[in-house]
């Protein structure tokens, strides 16, 4: 339990730093990848907090966030897909 309490500030500071790059990011891609990494780390943080709170019922949120964190990436990629038609019926 001591390890978890010591590690929590590291994660919180990392979240803030990711968010700073997400705010600053010169292009939209910089913001996207940093917010994406933020989502994965929040998922890991939720898992660690579920050990801290001693309840495995809380793990569901971590699963959902890990499943869909990449939807943001796909959304951004799809927006640019309008200008560059890629893909097809099979292969690239």
């Amino acid at each position, binding site marked *: 339990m001591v390890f978890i309490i010591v590690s929590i500030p590291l994660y919180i500071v990392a979240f803030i730093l990711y968010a700073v790059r997400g705010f600053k990011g010169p292009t939209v891609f910089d913001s996207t990848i*940093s917010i994406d990494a933020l989502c994965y780390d929040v998922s890991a943080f939720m898992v660690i907090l579920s050990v801290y709170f001693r309840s495995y019922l809380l793990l569901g949120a*971590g699963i959902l966030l890990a499943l869909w964190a990449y939807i943001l990436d796909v959304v951004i990629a799809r927006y640019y897909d309008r200008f560059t038609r890629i893909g097809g019926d099979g292969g690239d």
Partner: protein
Amino acid sequence: MGLGGLVLTIIGGAIIFIGGLFDLVAALGVNKFPDFYTRLHAVTIGAIGGAVYPIIGSAILVFGVPGLSLSARLSFALPMLVIASLILITAPTGSHAVARAAYRSGLKPYRRIPGEVKK
């Protein structure tokens, strides 16, 4: 659990702590690197080192914590392994999709290599 439980607790907690350090280093790198393509490296460290490792570490930690039944330990550990493998699959895919979109939309690298950058 005795000594084995203590060892598992220390290993799991250490992995969680190292994961936090990875995360911090990755976040610093994301802020320090000059352009998008170099920042992708830091983000990968953040997703794999900062998310997958600590989850596996907490799965180890759960087996060391005293006073839990085996079914409770498994109820903790199995979803954790599922989450870890999910991040292992989706994080590179997301980076790939964004990198591809960035490259195709004509984002230039920080130091331009002649002949490799499409306008």
